[in-house]
């Protein structure tokens, strides 16, 4: 083999970069998202069920919320009729946060795991946040 | 099959060509597009394989029985020896950037003259025999069977490439078609499929030291004639030395400079310059050829021919070597000589005895290009020049392929030209420097058998000359290459007859004001020198 030094070095760099995920995570604790539904409102529910199926909510909640806000702001339709026929007010504050009043334990779990940073909180007040702010 | 085609074509003019894949189109050997095969005597003299009488237009090429084995073994051997070959076989993405960079494609339109396809000719065989994917997927992966038709195709197209490397400038991976053509030709050589226009000069050079096979005494005659002409036109008697031991510098130039027009005028330029400087130098009859048609044959042949220069330098005990204006000669000297026949530890690092300049860029090979040498002289004001003697000339400069793309000697000749003549005009920028166009006669194609092909391939170069001729009245095309001087002359004669071809040092010789010269009324060519007043009839 010729130019051994340079080529081996190059290959090592290449292999290192390719397998970087393997190295990067060595020795790091494997944290799995563990979203908690343990809020007062949910505890009181007989049937613990979100407005749509869990799977739909996991995959499509962002598009659903996006649709909600368009509907509420632009079409002044404020009520959502779920597939199961229940009525919900389309509002983060009035509906979602009612049950999911634990932003850190619920939203954040997956969002920080998947590194998704929505800009919801630039305007919408995180549940519980107003207290901190008010006391300032 | 071809006959049937022709008949059909004659009776049915509505015949539409099928959209064939390139692999299914075989070349037609027509006069003007191929070179005659090497004569057996030349091959025999050089101990090369399969010397025989044969013809490319004939069906049977009289290949050896185990031709396939020879080719495949040859390929394997070269893949193992040349990383360039192996890498270039693998990494082409067929982006097509090279397609319209080849002068033969531009001038002729034959798709297989696109560098990418020229390389695919051999790549397809490589894939079929040396890669797993190619062996399994076959044609789907662009692989094909090695057949005799493939050999014919190789012969046709690898002798339609002038190894000018223009495509390699534009290739995003630097794939160099010259390298591929050289491998292709080496493989063809193994089968004895080579051309006489290359092999005869090789044989001659091997034996006598120069391409035409001129023997030492005849060489002296040629010089004699040149010296007589110099005496007539300049009034100075020059007596150069030959094979002189103990000289400081050995001077090597392509042999075309001794006996071919217009090279001789360039040679006279060297003689005048070196005489005027009083340089302690000598010519050699043994190493009397700077050119090296081995480059168009095989790496081994390059080495066999090139060995003479260092051997002669060692025998004569010179300190360093000065080289004349030539293209492929300088590719060999610059890129191969030291590696093949060095180290030249018996020589000294070149120093100009006139200016004291140390040529650091030649400190290992110990061979200096005369343009570098002369540019240094002019820069240090060591020459008395009268550029007005070249006032008749409106000059442009053709960068020869090898000095520009294998060496990068671009500014030196321009510097010299601008000091020895007053009217200098550049050709369009995409046709000069590293993007220069070939004369279409390099790499052993400069023969009359290829005349149509050469005129076609020379179109881009001729066009650029036409451009400056139309705009600025350019009438002289300068170049630094013996093959250029020969083939551009013809090319110009056909496309732009008003333009003549010249070497750089011919202009130097004309402009050089020498001690003891008579009043110059004739140029080195014997044309009258324009007076500053009157004599406008020329």
């Amino acid at each position: 083999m010729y130019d051994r030094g340079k080529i081996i070095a190059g290959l090592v760099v290449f292999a290192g970069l390719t397998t970087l995920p393997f190295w990067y995570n060595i020795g790091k604790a494997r944290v799995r998202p563990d979203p908690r539904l343990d809020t007062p409102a949910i505890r009181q529910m007989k049937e613990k069920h979100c407005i749509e199926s869990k799977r739909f909510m996991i995959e499509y909640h962002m598009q659903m919320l996006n649709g909600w806000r368009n509907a509420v702001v632009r079409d002044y339709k404020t009520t959502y009729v779920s597939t199961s026929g229940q009525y919900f007010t389309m509002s983060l504050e009035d509906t979602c946060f009612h049950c999911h009043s634990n932003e850190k334990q619920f939203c954040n779990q997956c969002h920080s795991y998947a590194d998704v940073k929505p800009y919801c909180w630039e305007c919408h007040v995180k549940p519980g946040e107003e207290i901190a702010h008010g006391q300032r | 099959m071809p006959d049937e085609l022709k008949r059909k074509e004659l009776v049915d003019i509505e015949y539409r060509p099928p959209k064939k894949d390139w692999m299914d189109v075989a070349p037609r050997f027509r006069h003007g597009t191929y070179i005659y095969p090497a004569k057996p005597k030349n091959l025999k003299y050089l101990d090369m394989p399969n010397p025989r009488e044969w013809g490319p237009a004939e069906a049977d090429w009289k290949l050896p029985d185990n031709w396939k084995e020879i080719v495949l073994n040859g390929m394997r051997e070269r893949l193992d020896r040349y990383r360039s070959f192996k890498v270039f076989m693998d990494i082409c993405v067929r982006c097509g950037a090279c397609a319209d960079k080849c002068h033969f494609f531009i001038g002729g339109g034959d798709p297989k003259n696109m560098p990418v396809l020229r390389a695919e000719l051999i790549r397809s065989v490589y894939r079929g025999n040396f890669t797993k994917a190619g062996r399994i997927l076959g044609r789907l992966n662009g692989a094909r069977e090695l057949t005799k038709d493939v050999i014919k195709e190789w012969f046709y197209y690898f002798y339609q490439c002038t190894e000018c490397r223009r495509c390699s400038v534009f290739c995003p991976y630097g794939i160099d078609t010259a390298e591929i053509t050289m491998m292709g030709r080496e493989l063809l050589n193994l089968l004895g499929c080579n051309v006489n226009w290359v092999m005869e000069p090789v044989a001659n050079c091997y034996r006598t030291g120069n391409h035409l096979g001129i023997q030492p005494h005849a060489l002296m005659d040629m010089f004699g004639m040149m010296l007589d002409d110099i005496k007539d036109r300049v009034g100075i008697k020059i007596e150069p030395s030959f094979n002189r031991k103990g000289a400081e510098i050995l001077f090597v130039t392509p042999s075309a400079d001794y006996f071919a027009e217009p090279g001789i005028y360039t040679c006279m330029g060297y003689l005048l310059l070196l005489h005027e400087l009083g340089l302690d130098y000598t010519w050699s009859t043994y190493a009397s050829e700077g050119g090296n048609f081995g480059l168009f044959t095989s790496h081994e042949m390059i080495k066999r021919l090139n060995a003479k220069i260092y051997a002669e330098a060692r025998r004569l005990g010179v300190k360093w070597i000065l080289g004349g204006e030539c293209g492929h000669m300088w590719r060999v000297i610059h890129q191969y000589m030291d590696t093949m026949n060095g180290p030249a530890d018996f020589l000294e690092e070149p120093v100009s005895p006139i200016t004291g300049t140390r040529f650091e860029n030649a400190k290992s090979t110990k061979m200096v290009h005369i343009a570098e040498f002369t540019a240094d002289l002019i820069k240090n004001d060591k020459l008395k020049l009268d550029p007005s003697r070249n006032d008749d000339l409106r000059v442009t400069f053709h960068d020869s392929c090898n000095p520009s793309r294998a060496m990068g000697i671009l500014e030196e000749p321009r510097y010299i030209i601008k000091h020895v003549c007053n009217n200098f005009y550049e050709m369009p920028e995409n046709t000069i420097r590293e993007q220069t166009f070939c004369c279409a006669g390099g790499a052993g194609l400069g023969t009359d058998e290829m005349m149509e092909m050469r005129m076609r391939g020379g179109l881009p170069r001729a066009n650029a000359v036409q451009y400056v001729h139309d705009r600025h009245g350019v009438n002289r095309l300068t170049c630094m290459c013996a093959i250029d001087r020969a083939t551009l002359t013809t090319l110009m004669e056909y496309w732009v007859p008003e333009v003549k071809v010249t070497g750089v040092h011919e202009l130097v010789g004309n402009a050089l004001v020498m001690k003891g010269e008579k009043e110059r009324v004739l140029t080195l060519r014997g044309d009258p020198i324009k007076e500053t007043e009157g004599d406008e009839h020329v």
Partner: protein
Amino acid sequence: MDSDKRRFLRFMGISTGLVIGSGFLGGLSSALRLGTKLGGSALAAQGAVSGSLISSPSALKAGRWAMAIDLRKFKTNDDYRRCIDACDEIHNIPDIPTGQEIKWVWEEPYENAFPEQQNHYLEKGLKDKPILLMCNQCEYPPCVRVCPTGATFKRRDGIVMMDYHRCIGCRYCMAACPYGSRSFNFQDPRPFIKHICPDYPTRTKGVVEKCDFCAERLDKGLLPACVEASNGAMVFGDLDDPNSDIRKLLSKSFSIRRKPELGTQPSIFYIL
């Protein structure tokens, strides 16, 4: 798992169908779909999957909402403050001390509020009398006309709305508004909000905002906060309904509007 499987097969059907059936055209059409989706309601595309959207049955509805401000009933400073504070609190209006302030409902002296309606011999005290100002909810709003993104638009019930998610902050509407009703969030408003009301979003920096007749309250069946707080000094109702309180009030009292000559047809009436 069963439904998962069905869902999966549907996805596969769609995706392979897309790939096989239309190849690159598929790519193109999905790019177009992306465009429409981005442009319109994302949920509409998924309407079949999830529920439907309707307006709230309890929402207050009108042909054209309007407000009459009975200046006669604004006597003490507290009359003004009540209305303004009610709005500020529920809408998270920041209190920014500089010229880059945010105002939804505020007061200006009569001479500034009605510069074209003055003479030297005005009723005593009127010249300096504070007037409550807010977005006029014009029938022909210049701000809507100039908005390059449709971030401000007029609802069918006449309310000129702001879509904070769409506003790019070009402030063309502010230049166009002849009433100075619009404010721009030059900075993040949150540090300037004394008490954040969790039921209503704050705004982010870089968007324009203004009074929207408490559209969110109307949708819940409530009157605008200022009206509620005004103890009857402000009357809110449907101009298209001849029996509404506001029509009745307007028909029996003299009312003026700001800059009527501009033809914007404000929906705020002032009763002197």
